């Protein structure tokens, strides 16, 4: 933890931890006190169904993108990513989805890798 002359690495985190704990207690107490007003305030905003599935798919697609980027390369990865999102969330026709994904993948590759010289990986197929 270090001494006053040379505060160590653990000093700051410990301090923050203590303060956070204190604040959390305050927040807890506050929320307990407000319990009576909660029921009126939580009228649902919308009568539409909550689409959990959308969030899961998007998260999964994002994670998959991150993991496969170096193997598949930017162009293929982007293409697949766009395709999945366009088909699953608000389903488009195959033609529109494939076309949009293709255009996006190719133009972004041109823009980022070729024009800007970004170093987004090319994957095993060489592009």
């Amino acid at each position, binding site marked *: 933890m270090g001494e006053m002359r040379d505060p160590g690495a653990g000093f700051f985190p410990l301090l923050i931890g203590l303060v956070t704990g204190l604040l959390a207690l305050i927040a807890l107490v506050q929320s307990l006190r407000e319990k009576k007003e909660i029921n009126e305030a939580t009228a649902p905003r919308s009568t539409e169904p909550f689409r959990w599935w959308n969030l899961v798919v998007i998260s999964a697609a994002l994670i998959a993108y991150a993991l496969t980027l170096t193997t598949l390369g930017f162009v293929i990865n982007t293409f697949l990513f766009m395709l999945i999102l366009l088909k699953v969330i608000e389903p488009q026709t195959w033609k529109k989805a494939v076309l949009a994904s293709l255009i996006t993948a190719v133009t972004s590759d041109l823009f980022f890798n070729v024009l800007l010289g970004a*170093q987004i990986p090319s994957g*095993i*197929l*060489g592009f």
Partner: protein
Amino acid sequence: MKINRLGTCICLFVLAVCVLGTTPAAAQDYPKGPIQLVVPFSSGGATDIFWRTLGEQFSKNLKANIAIVNKPGGGGIVGMSTVVTAKPDGYTLCAGNSDTLDITPLFTKDLPFDTINDLTYMVKVANFPQTLVVRTDSLFKTLDDVIAFARTNPKKLKASTPGFGTNPYMALQLLNYDAKAEIVPVNFTGGGENVTAVLGGHVDLGAVALPPVKSQVLAGKIRILAIFSKERHPLYPDIPTAYEKGYRQTLVDTGMGIVGPKGLPAEVIKKWEQVVQTTLKDPAVISAIHKFDFVPDYQTGDQYKKEIVDEFALFKKIISQSK
């Protein structure tokens, strides 16, 4: 109809993979294609600029394109770790700074790889020196002044460094050990903050690498007291080295070399050694390197490795004794 098209696509895809994903080229024809050199520091820094400039030269002599990829982080560890796991075919290499190789493992446990044993040391290219500086209006005019004061006033002098575990930091510790002084390091983040601290008079001394401080020296704002190399710098023959003043252990140059994954074929290493040796003989290249205040230093892969191993042992000894 749909299934047919899909089937055709799949077949073409598989075929493409087979054709393009060929086995690595035979080492005798190295290099057959572009080589990726990972620079484990961010773009625009001294290290990055050095490698970009030299990279172009090496490309010419290697007759292959060298693509520089910046992967900063962890003082070089992040970028290097991606090369450790790459295929040992000579097409993915890493620019190695000596701090990453022999200082970081000293202070950071649980590194994702072993810097000495998990890498192939290919060739060393240059050094850049570390210095001890003061503001020009400081009372200390020579290294002797500083040491004399430090010996009689332990822990009173404060010297800024670009960070814990950097080469200047090690230089300071070595000096403390050699001179039996106790100068307290104040660790900043990077050369910029380091120089600013000295210029602003917030510390008494600075342990700085040469490049960041050069323009201040030329403008007369900062004075270099000593260089921590073995020999005097060719461009600054007036500046004494700590070594010549009797501090035999205080030798800290940041070495710049190229490393690759373990198990690189000997032909690849040989090729690089040849190319570097030839390139460093070119006077235009030498003067370009001098412009950065680096000093060309060609070493073969084995010599390079030995240098790092020895330095590591030395640092280890000093650090354990100064605790």
